[in-house]
């Protein structure tokens, strides 16, 4: 088992395994998203309060969840890379950051579109989750900016890993401080605590979307890591052989 793991983390091996892994993640992921989209738009019944507007949760919830999962990948990748000096782990962090930023942005945009009919405003500073999510987006920007401003890849890996780990501590503090802050400024919470449970016909599409998005994220991440590995190892022999092979780097 340990040997297998060690084998997987060698860049040329990952490059090969990744190629077979991607369709296994992407195809079920896309199928689940297709089902979730159809079921969410047509089969799920209308919400008795929000009407059809609630249907945006089928994009919003998975995006918001993945915005945090991607950060976890980034920070864990950075931590493993710092501690065990594993090159592939740093590549995971580098590959996860733009995906995480994209999902964070998607979550913010869908949240704003949802907020317009529900709260009557595109943006509500009083909601702690919106503010935390915005700060998360800035953390991603900082991570990517630091990475791109250091030319030496090994150095960029380690410096951005330290930043990602400091950011993990910060995300927790941001969460609680923003919650304290918004409790000062608004009387009632926007969503009732222990509010109405979800009907099965609403819930199953949502679960399908969450799993589908996660699988798609996995596929995109695997693909980005593959590209990252190829770029980082561009001066090595195996990449040279791969590119010069008759199939042209398949």
């Amino acid at each position, binding site marked *: 088992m340990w040997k297998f793991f060690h084998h997987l983390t060698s860049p040329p091996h990952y490059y090969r395994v990744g190629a077979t892994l991607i369709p296994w993640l992407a195809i079920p992921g896309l199928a689940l998203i297709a089902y979730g989209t159809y079921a969410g738009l047509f089969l799920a019944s209308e919400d008795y309060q929000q009407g059809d507007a609630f249907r945006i949760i089928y994009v919003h919830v998975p995006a918001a969840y993945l915005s945090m999962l991607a950060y976890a990948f980034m920070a864990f990748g950075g931590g493993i890379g*710092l501690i065990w000096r594993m090159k592939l782990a740093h590549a995971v962090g580098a590959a996860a950051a733009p995906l995480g930023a994209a999902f964070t942005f998607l979550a913010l945009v869908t949240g704003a579109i949802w907020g317009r009919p529900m709260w009557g405003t595109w943006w509500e500073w009083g909601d702690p989750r919106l503010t935390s999510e915005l*700060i998360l987006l*800035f*953390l991603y*920007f*900082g991570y990517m*900016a*630091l990475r791109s*401003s*250091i030319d030496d890849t*090994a*150095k960029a890996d*380690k*410096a951005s890993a*330290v*930043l990602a*780990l*400091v*950011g993990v*501590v*910060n995300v927790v*503090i*941001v969460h609680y*401080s*923003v919650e*304290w*802050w918004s409790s*000062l400024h608004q009387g009632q919470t926007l969503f009732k605590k222990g509010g109405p449970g979800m009907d099965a016909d609403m819930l199953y599409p949502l679960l399908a979307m969450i799993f589908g998005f996660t699988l798609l994220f996995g596929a995109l991440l695997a693909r980005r890591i593959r590209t990252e590995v190829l770029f980082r190892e561009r001066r090595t022999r195996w990449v040279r052989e791969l590119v010069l092979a008759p199939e042209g780097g398949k």
Partner: protein
Amino acid sequence: MTSTNPQQPGIFAGLAAIARRDILLAWKRPGDVLNPLFFFAMVCTLFPLAVGPSAEQLIFSGPGVLWVAALLATLLSLNTLFMSDHEDGSLDQMLVSPQPLPVLALGKTLAHWLISGLPLVLISPLLALTYRMPGDVVGVLMLTLLLGTICLSLLGSIGAALTVGLHTGTALLSLLILPLAMPVLLLGANTVSLAAGNDIYATGIWALGAYAVAALSLAPYATAAALRISSE
């Protein structure tokens, strides 16, 4: 290890020596200390000019403006924290010294706070009075700024260590530090607002204090790790 050597000075000797040296350097070049303070005063002046001098507006916005200005002024002084040490090689000396690097980094941060944080706290009442802040609220403002600038110096030292030797200027440092500093700003400014509204504000003070203690115990290690990475 050399730490068993009886001739080796204790760890606080290194901290004190670094801090003393930095304060002496700042004393010889007072411009570096004064410029962020002038910047602080200037930002606080700009705001009433932009939104108008009405008393209720100033009372309402005073805590926020003073805090944002303090945050930006601290940020301005952070860029040079490790820069001259990196350029003249003293940073490399710190890295090879038998003294633990986190303690030396703490010494640098302590000096930074004494040079830029503490003066900010001391001149804040003057600016707070122009915002018509009552005396007891000014006390709360000073207390939050005292704790807050400690947090900001410590957080900033991580960012400064990560960007040392990069020719990117203050913009990258701001991008790294501001998301981390947001909880400090949020706690600090809102605590003062609560005090101004005769509300219970102790929660904010405790939270800021907890943040300062946590930063004091964790940030020097992150700064030391970042310094090692940056000077590879």
